[in-house]
């Protein structure tokens, strides 16, 4: 028996207490015990803005946000506020029966806005189904994201319009698409980069491991952005890994970094750094954004069954939006007028989302047969014709009456 397998037989921490163990949090109780498989030292967490909204120095990553202007800082804040508002509106719409399902990003705004704003227009993004904030940064109309959740399509946008791929439901599949796309970018001699999003649960999937292998072997310009939001539906990160996730990269031969996922500045800086590495031909990077999913996995989920209220409360103290607001106010980079205007803009966005969703037409019946194949298919043609005849039979009956 190996040392590792012996360790695996030790009692594990209970799910309800484990996520208080975030870096930067005051650690008490069983969560303070070192994780099995780690070196004993807490993983380093890149942080530029503390939960209290204080700017802290980091020699490695400060240069990537050194030239950020107050206006840009306000922009990041605006992005996070509007994304949260959009997300809340979608959650409400689901509760009102307007959407079949919604996957909320509540709590992950900094990870998404920070990384999303680090991308360049010609970069390409491969999201999961929760990257509403990244979509926002890419200029995707947020209402486009709602079609599949309302059930009017299974994707519904042109990925090439904003270099933002379709949402991917099968966990981790898109990391391979991102890697292949990045291999193509390298073949083309382009200096753009690719970023693939996935979660802590996806890190257990074979496709993610294979994407690490392929990207390393071919030195593909891809950044793997893992939002470790602590829970894969009801399963805590301990059910996925025995080492901090960012350390996985080491085994594949590329760097891994853990960043405070609730710190938008740090997420921006670290992602810029990783994207620049990719552009300069230095290959893939794994970023683990250490964050928290404050809501349910999706609107079908009930997190009260598997996690404690105190856990969420401890993360609310690290809210990504509040900490930037504190910083903006303390540094006099934003005044009351800005916040008031943003509140009005937020209201308007919510109203627009509601109106657009409710007005979203059901698809034409013949959409079933559209775009199944690019070059056509005899069976699809035959069945479309059968369907048309069947539909027409109702019209004939109507006429006969």
């Amino acid at each position, binding site marked *: 028996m190996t040392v590792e397998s012996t360790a695996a037989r030790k009692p594990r921490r209970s799910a309800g207490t484990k996520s208080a163990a975030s870096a930067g949090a005051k650690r008490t109780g069983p969560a303070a015990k070192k994780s099995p498989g780690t070196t004993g030292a807490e993983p380093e967490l890149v942080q530029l803005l503390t939960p209290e909204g204080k700017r802290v120095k980091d020699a490695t990553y400060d240069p990537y946000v050194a030239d950020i202007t107050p206006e840009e800082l306000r922009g990041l804040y605006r992005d996070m506020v509007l994304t949260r508002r959009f997300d809340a509106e979608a959650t409400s719409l689901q509760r009102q029966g307007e959407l079949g399902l919604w996957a909320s990003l509540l709590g992950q705004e900094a990870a998404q806005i920070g990384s999303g704003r680090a991308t360049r227009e010609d970069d390409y993004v491969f999201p999961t189904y929760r990257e509403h904030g990244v979509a926002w940064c890419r200029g995707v109309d947020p209402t486009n994201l709602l079609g599949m959740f309302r059930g009017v399509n299974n994707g519904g946008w042109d990925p090439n319009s904003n270099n933002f791929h379709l949402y991917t439901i099968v966990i981790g599949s898109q990391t391979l*698409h991102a890697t292949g796309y990045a*291999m193509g970018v390298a073949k083309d001699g382009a200096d753009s980069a690719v970023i693939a999003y996935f979660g802590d649960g996806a890190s257990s999937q074979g496709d993610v491991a*294979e994407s690490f292998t*392929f990207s390393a072997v071919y030195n593909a310009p891809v950044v793997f952005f893992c939002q470790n939001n602590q829970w894969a539906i009801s399963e805590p990160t301990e059910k996925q890994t025995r080492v901090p996730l960012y350390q996985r990269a080491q085994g594949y031969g590329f760097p891994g970094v853990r960043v405070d996922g609730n710190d938008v500045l740090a997420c921006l800086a670290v992602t810029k750094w990783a994207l620049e590495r990719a552009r300069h031909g230095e290959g893939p990077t794994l970023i683990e954004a250490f964050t928290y999913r404050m809501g349910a996995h999706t609107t079908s989920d009930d997190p009260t069954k598997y996690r404690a209220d105190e856990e969420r409360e401890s993360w609310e103290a690290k809210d990504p939006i509040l900490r930037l607001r504190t910083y903006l106010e303390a540094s006099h980079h934003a005044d009351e007028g800005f916040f008031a205007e943003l509140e009005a803009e937020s209201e308007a966005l919510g109203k627009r989302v509601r109106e657009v969703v409710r007005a979203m037409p059901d698809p034409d019946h013949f959409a079933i047969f559209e775009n199944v194949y*690019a070059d056509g*298919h005899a069976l699809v043609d035959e069945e479309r014709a059968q369907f048309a005849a069947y539909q027409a039979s109702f019209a004939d009956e109507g006429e006969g009456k």
Partner: protein
Amino acid sequence: MAAEKMALAKAINESLRTALDADPKVLIMGEDVGKLGGVFRVTDGLQKDFGEDRVIDTPLAESGIVGTAIGLALRGYRPVVEIQFDGFVFPAYDQIVTQLAKMHARALGKIKLPVVIRIPYGGGIGAVEHHSESPEALFAHVAGLKVVSPSNASDAYWMMQQAIQSDDPVIFFEPKRRYWDKSEVNKDAIPGPLHKARVVREGADLTLAAYGPMVKVCVEAAAAAQEEGKSIEVLDLRSMSPIDFDSVQASVEKTRRLVVVHEAPVFLGTGAEIAARITERCFYHLEAPVLRVGGYHAPYPPARLEEEYLPGLDRVLDAVDRSLAY
């Protein structure tokens, strides 16, 4: 250029070479496809001539091969990937079914996935477990995929050209026990459509419909039947998705009897679909129920038993007799 006699494997090799030459976006990917030229040498010499950037030896990871091919296709490339053996495609089945097959529709037609997946398939070479399977029905069942299989060198050459040019994902099943069979390939010929069936042999009493490795068996069966005074038509379907039902129907309206032959298990297989459709289309023409000859509902057997499992001349002729007895 005059027609040239070559083995089926060589015809695919020549076809890939032609495609690599014609379009810089065409890529070959797979395990051992480079220096070794593939375990069946189908890609022999291609890396030497087109470089490691075009003929790519991949890590040993089937899902990775297909998943990255999808990404490359999204970037504008036309990857032709090799799965080493039929039974090894299943680690990639998720990527093929949940991603490759559906992405065009999900993007409302705005993106195309011109990926060809080559799979040497079928038995008859005395291989070990997972090296002799015929999973074509599993792929033909999935909307968004096209599924074809050549039975001779000429079709292998031309169908591969057409598969690569297709903007749809194509699963290209190569009958591995026919890799070394030689036949004429005319590279100047204008091929028929990729999904059109072909009458291999004209007949009046019964139609044998087959594809891939079983076409040769059916031609031999027809020849044997002729010695007993029976006139058998042999149809090479060539495509399992879509299936050219019009050609099958035309043949059955002439012969009034149909036997479908494939190596794959009969239960819920390609033959079942053909039997159902042809029964619908030709109910008043049929003199006998559509019969099927194929593999059993059992794992592909060890090599010493595969002759019992695979449809051979006698099993096909037995079905012919049963049909004619109605």
